[in-house]
Every structure is written in C-alpha cells, then in structure tokens.
C-alpha cells in the first residue's frame, strides 16, 4: 500500500484519485468475476433403463481368518424395486463394514454413472469358502459389479480389489500379494489393484521340512524382497485410483 501511495506521489496523483482507481478496479474485477466465474451446474441423475432382473458374476479374491487367500464369487443382482441394498453372505458370518461397503459402492456407482438408484434393488451375494467375511476390500468390486449389471456387461477374467469411497476413489487394502496369487490360480488374467500396490516389499515366510533319517528337520525363513506382482505372478496387474479408471478396463471406455 505504501508503495502504491509512493508511486501515486511520483506520478502526481492526488489521494482521492488513488481511492477512485481502487474502487473502479474493485468494481470491474467483481463484475468480471461474476460473469466469467465457472458455475457448477446441478448434476442430473437419470433413471436407468432396467426392465428386468440382471445378475452378473465377478471373481472376488479374499482372505480367510487364517490369512490365506481364498477365491470368492460376487453375484450382484439389480432389479426394478425401491432402492433396497441387500447383502447375502449365506452361512458366512460377515462384519458390518462389509455391509457398509455395499451401500457406499452403490452410491459411488450412482455418482459415476449419474443414475438414480432409488428405483432399483441391489442384492450382493457373496459365495466364499470361509467362515468369516470381514473388511471393506470388496467395495470396489461391488461398485463395478453394479455398473456392469446396469450396463448388461460381463466381468470376464478381470478382478479387482480395493476399498471404495462415495466419490469413486479407490483406496488401499491389505494382503494384496495373497489376493493376487489366489486370483491368478483361479483364472483371473487381469487384476486391478489400488494405486501404489502393484509392487512393494513383500516378506514371504517359507517353511520347508525334510527327514534326516527318522528326524524331521524344519526350516522357516523370512525373505523380504521387492516384488512386482505382475512379473512375479505372470499376470497383468494394473493400478487404478478411481472407479472410472477401473471401469474402463471392463468397457474399454476412455475416461476423462
């Protein structure tokens, strides 16, 4: 301010001229800002064209209570209804965070596809050979399965792991190595993982037992090494940060 006044003095402007110039600049700036400010137009949510019940199936790598990888199947059914979101885990005990994931997944899918799901019932059915289903790591798969079902597409040999947020961002999960390995063993050719999880230091516990005469001798060692999942398991692994990025692998649709 002092510099401006010094400059005004230098070019022989009087104080009220400076104030006037300030006011004019402020008014012009305000008007320009009002005219050119980007406006957020209200998002229009369409009613999906769904006349009949559709079910799609996705392979879902998971971890059992002993930390081993197990393959599950996620069957997602969408049908005309009134906005119910149900999770069926059959005889498998499930934690509330898995149920919450289903709800968040539906919201993320709704926002991404800009569809109103209030007239649709979604039923997630989890079939897995484990006694307990816990954790939110099926969230991304649930969201994708809703999109695939609405678009009447199939998952094919692509699987995904990751948590989902309502804005469609996908977050990291644990036991990525075990999930990738069990996915590969069950025919998954392309595995989508959260950003930053396609490689990392992995400690592998190796147990080898042999018999020396009648004596059973076991050796357990912990080997830590940097592993690129794709190279190590000979499968295609892609990192995805959003639901849109992940969905493009199913539809080959370019994302913005």
């Amino acid at each position: 301010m002092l510099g401006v006044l010094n400059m005004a003095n230098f070019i022989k402007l009087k104080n009220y001229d400076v104030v006037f110039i300030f006011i004019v600049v402020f008014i012009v700036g305000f008007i320009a800002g009002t005219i050119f400010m980007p406006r957020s137009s209200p998002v229009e949510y369409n009613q999906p064209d769904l006349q009949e019940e559709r079910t799609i199936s996705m392979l879902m790598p998971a971890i059992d209570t002993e930390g081993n990888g197990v393959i599950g199947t996620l069957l997602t059914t969408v049908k005309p209804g009134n906005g119910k979101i149900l999770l069926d885990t059959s005889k498998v005990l499930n934690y509330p965070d898995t149920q919450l994931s289903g709800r968040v997944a539906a919201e993320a899918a709704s926002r991404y596809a800009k569809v109103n799901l209030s007239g649709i019932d979604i039923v997630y059915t989890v079939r897995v050979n484990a006694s307990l289903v816990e954790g939110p790591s099926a969230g991304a798969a649930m969201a994708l399965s809703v999109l695939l079902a609405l678009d009447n597409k199939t998952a094919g040999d692509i699987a995904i792991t990751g948590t989902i947020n309502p804005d469609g961002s996908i977050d990291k999960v644990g036991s990525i190595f075990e999930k990738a390995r069990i996915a590969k063993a069950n025919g998954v050719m392309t595995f989508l993982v959260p950003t930053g999880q396609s490689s990392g230091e992995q400690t592998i516990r190796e147990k080898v037992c042999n018999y020396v005469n009648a004596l059973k001798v076991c050796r357990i060692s912990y080997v830590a090494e940097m592993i690129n999942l794709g190279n190590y398991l000979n499968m295609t692994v892609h990192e995805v940060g959003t639901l849109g990025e992940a969905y493009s692998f199913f539809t080959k649709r370019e994302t913005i």
Partner: protein
Amino acid sequence: MARLFTEDQAYSIQRGVERSLGTRPLTHDIMKDILDVFDVRILNIRIDRYEDDIYFATIFFQQGEKVLELDARPSDSIAMALRTYTPLYFKDSILQSKGIYIC
C-alpha cells in the same frame, strides 16, 4: 478396556491385526513358528485378573496329552492370539469395571 502398551508391544499387536510380516520376524512371530512346528496349539487365552493396576492373563497350551497353563502379560497374549487365531476371553467383571464404551 483402557490399557497402555509400550511401543514395541503395540507394534507387534498392530502387525498381528494387519496380518503382515515385517522385514524380520518379531518375537511373537518366532513363537508362533515354534508352536506350529512342534504341534503345540493354544486352546484359549483369558484375561482374568486385575490387581494393583496390573492386568493378568493366562494362556492355555496343548500338545497331545499335555496342557500347559501359563501366566502371561495381556499384551503378549493378545499378540499371540492374533497370530494363532485363538479365542480371547475377558473376565466379565473386569470388562464391566474397567471397560470403556467407544461406540
């Protein structure tokens, strides 16, 4: 239940919760390996006593016909329970008197 653990104890419990192996095995990882190889299983773990601001736990081991009842710290007990998928029981009166509702 409010309880302060040391940093090492908390780290070991955290690794158990996350089911992650660090670069090198911790004491509880080694103990789990020993139990595994020598066919010793933990039947259950009980946090069953509280005296003079100290919690006491008991770990019940079994190998074949033998059972060992071992006095232990709750921190070690929790770390072992997480690694061996063993049920962990709190004495109801301790939970009632020392427990804190967090949700």
